[in-house]
């Protein structure tokens, strides 16, 4: 069963963070205990979306080996009333920290991989979390590939943009296949997604172009753009079609329908 999920994409702006936050919140709403980590060290954003001003320690510190993972975790369960545990681990948004993370060498990245891998025991086995979700940097960044290696399932967010389609296809073939990762595709910002012809066309694309199972098809919703990342969509808009799509994604993951 997929317990560690990495949300990744080839290009930026495909909706990884939106998906990560709402996937985590949807699991938490269903009573699951979830840990969401910001692994986008070059452009941290979870702190802003989840409105967390100051963290005692950041994920950067844990990967540097200067603090324990418990000091990184921030309990935001109160943001999902009546749900399971909802914890987050943030990336340090300061310019100095971003610069520092960009200059890490291969040996540091190797130790960082070891520390990410040890989260499985520390959080899933010892602390009883049901899911760990990594929001990653786009493209072939070290931190993203570390997250992919650690994960049981990779959710790939893509759009209809031609360069994104081509890059995503190559990334699937040359990265995910080599690591033998279970992968689910989310095509985001789809125009005319209500029409059956369009949905069939996207299903066909997932099967033939990307050759991975479709996890979800997300139409281009003006409400999401208007929200400007200022609230957790699935919590505040429970009847919105986007929320229903997210529920369907979590159902597929829970039922282990992505192989």
């Amino acid at each position, binding site marked *: 069963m997929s317990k560690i999920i990495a949300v990744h994409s080839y290009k930026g702006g495909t909706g990884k963070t939106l998906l990560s936050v709402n996937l985590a919140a949807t699991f938490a709403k269903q009573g699951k205990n979830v840990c969401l980590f910001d692994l986008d060290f070059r452009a941290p954003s979870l702190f802003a979306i989840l409105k967390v001003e100051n963290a005692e320690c950041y994920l950067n510190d844990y990967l540097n080996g200067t603090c324990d993972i418990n000091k990184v975790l921030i309990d935001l369960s109160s943001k999902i009333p009546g749900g399971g545990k909802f914890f987050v681990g943030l990336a340090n948004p300061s310019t100095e920290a971003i610069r520092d993370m960009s200059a890490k060498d291969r*040996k540091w990245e190797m130790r960082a*991989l070891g520390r990410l891998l*040890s989260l499985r025991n520390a959080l899933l086995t010892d602390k009883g979390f049901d899911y760990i979700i990594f929001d990653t940097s786009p493209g072939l960044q070290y931190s993203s590939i570390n997250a992919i290696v650690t994960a049981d399932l990779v959710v790939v967010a893509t759009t209809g943009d031609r360069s994104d389609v081509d890059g995503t296809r190559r990334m699937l073939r040359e990265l995910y296949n*080599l690591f033998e990762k279970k992968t689910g595709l989310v095509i985001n910002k789809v125009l005319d997604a209500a029409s059956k012809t369009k949905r069939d066309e996207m299903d066909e694309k997932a099967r033939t172009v990307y050759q991975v199972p479709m996890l979800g098809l997300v139409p281009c919703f003006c409400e999401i753009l208007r929200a400007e990342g200022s609230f957790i969509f699935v919590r505040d808009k429970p009847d919105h079609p986007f929320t229903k799509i997210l529920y369907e994604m979590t159902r597929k993951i829970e039922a282990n329908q992505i192989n």
Partner: protein
Amino acid sequence: MNNYQCVVRLNKPSTVTSVAYTHNTRGTLLNNEEALGRKPLHVLEKIRENLERLNDKMEVMIELQKHGRKDIQPFSDTPLDVMTLLSMPDHLRKTAMTICRCGRATAEEISEQTTRARAVESAYLNQLVIMGYLKKERKGRKAYFYADRESQV
């Protein structure tokens, strides 16, 4: 007899049990421990450990022959990071990925995850040791493999 046959013979329990007994002058079968005291048992244990080490080495030699030594660069100074994993041949990557996930494991434990034969995993793990990516530690009869990330500074 080729190397592979040698490996199989060393793994046969009968090879070890056959030396655990001896005949006295009247032709009565005696247990070695009774006949010679406890010390020879330790010697036999040592012999067994040495045979197992020899077995490991032979498995590596078989693998080296099978792959024509092309993909084995001994004692690389590059760390076992994701880029190294990506550049590995498929058969070694699978083993390396599994040991990364397990942390510390025997060839038997790795073979349970990869569904390949124990002897095959043992050979691949030993290759990764030769290449400098993994460390190997013996505890009694078991050999444990692990990626020593912290010491590779």
